[in-house]
């Protein structure tokens, strides 16, 4: 009967371990849910159409509204426009550069320059964003003699680049070698095979990587402080300072009259990042090779 007893103990151990796993995964979910809940509860009251279409109110208007017990007027339209303008400018350059660099790294793996570039990519990915901000300040803001949206997008470009390079490289590496051979065996030239067979096959994963890179840099604040600076009015001029949603959260925090806008802006950012992540998941599933 010792045999049976052993079995009982093993079943019991198994159950305990399972319970433990459940408890710990539950514990990790708590802070995530708490953050979401906090932002949602405090932010949803701010959300309205005008919150998305109007620029930051001036401090006087906000103060008057607060003392009258009304919600603070105005919104974050200047920040939304700034964020998207700078993101688009950064992405338009970072996507082709990053994809080509990623292809080269996977194609020439083992060569000395690919190894060097690969290390540099890791280094860039690990560089604190505030350092990227200050570097961009020296490289772009100083020669241009002023803060600008261009400088902001350069900083975001540098932040996005290693993420896109990595995702492209990893995807190209897992594509079967026979796919490339099949293309070449049909008489395709190397670059035609890369562009018409390999890249489309990797497209789903690369696109997912791009979306995740965007969602990663959309909340970057530090590099924009040195470059885009911020602005209270809606602006489309990329040669001038420009607002961005994460920058505005910082500005609202520093102005006692505007503090109630923090949560609306946070909710906006969080929702957008969540949306990008869900989209990335869907695309990866749909385009799976």
């Amino acid at each position: 009967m010792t045999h049976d007893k052993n079995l009982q103990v093993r079943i019991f151990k198994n159950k305990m371990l399972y319970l433990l796993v459940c408890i710990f995964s539950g514990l990790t979910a708590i802070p995530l849910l708490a953050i979401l809940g906090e932002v949602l509860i405090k932010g949803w009251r701010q959300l309205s159409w005008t919150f998305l279409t109007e620029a930051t109110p001036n401090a006087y208007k906000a103060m008057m509204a607060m003392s009258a017990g009304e919600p603070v007027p105005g919104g974050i339209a200047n920040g939304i426009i700034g964020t998207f303008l700078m993101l688009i400018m950064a992405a338009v350059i970072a996507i082709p550069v990053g994809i080509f660099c990623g292809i080269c790294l996977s194609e020439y793996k083992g060569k000395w320059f690919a190894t060097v570039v690969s290390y540099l990519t890791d280094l860039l990915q690990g560089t604190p964003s505030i350092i990227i901000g200050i570097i961009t300040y020296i490289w772009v803001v100083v020669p241009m003699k002023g803060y600008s949206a261009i400088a902001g997008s350069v900083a975001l470009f540098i932040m996005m680049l290693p993420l896109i390079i990595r995702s492209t490289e990893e995807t190209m590496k897992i594509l079967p070698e026979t796919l490339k051979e099949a293309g070449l065996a049909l008489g395709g030239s190397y670059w035609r095979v890369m562009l018409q067979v390999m890249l489309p096959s990797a497209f789903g994963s690369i696109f997912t990587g791009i979306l995740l890179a965007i969602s990663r840099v959309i909340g970057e604040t530090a590099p924009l402080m040195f470059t885009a600076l911020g602005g209270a009015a809606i602006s489309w001029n990329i040669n001038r300072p420009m607002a961005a949603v994460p920058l505005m959260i910082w500005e609202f925090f520093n102005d006692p009259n505007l503090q109630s806008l923090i949560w609306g802006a946070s909710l906006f950012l969080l929702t957008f990042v969540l949306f990008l992540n869900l989209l990335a998941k869907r695309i990866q599933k749909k385009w799976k090779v």
Partner: protein
Amino acid sequence: MESIKDPILQIKNVSIAYGSNKLAVKNVSADVERNTITAIMGPSGCGKSTLLRAVNRMHELYKSIHVTGEILLNGVNIMEMHPTEERRKVGMVFQRPNPFPTMNIYDNVLAGYKLNGIKLSKTEKDEIVEKTLRDVALWDEVKDSLTKRGTFLSGGQQQRLCIARSLALRPDILLMDEPTSALDPIATKYIEELIVELKKSVTIMIVTHNMSQAKRISDYSMFMYMGELIEYDNSHIMFTEPKDERTRAYLTGKMG
């Protein structure tokens, strides 16, 4: 063996080395008769795939592989042709079916033209797709789903699609590297019947480690062992009265 009368391919003293000194193919010479099926047999690692891949210059993709000797296609040294031109004339079918995953069935058949930058009119495209898919006996099964992805088909259908993809370019030679080893017996039977049918229009060289397959479909057989071409003969003779002791041992299952 009886001499080859009308060789489409002449392999002369070909040796292939991986790295600096590991010879995978040792000084192989053989002529391949036009519009026949030539099987290359041998145990794993004997160099049969390596020899096959030299014919469409696949080894050039890898810096560490060196090919010496000459291969003549229709009397012309393949090294004197442009690699893309040469590979257009020598199609290849791989071990695992590998249709291009992002292309539909229609575009998979035409992939060779697209990758060579050859522009075709809509009617030309339709004609090529229908004719080629009929040639590989796939037309009736897929004619209503040409816009579906190639990967949506069954393994055997995918392999026939890959054969169609190569045939669409009207190659002189079709190289097949164990084309049925990933397929079930019924799909294998279809592919074998197809290969026999195809030799009317194209010369076929097929690598297989399945002796009975070689016996069923091939006109000529090569037996390779440790990188050497041990025996090359009419398949009928090879399977009934092999001359070399090693061939006999392999064919009777004493060596595998």
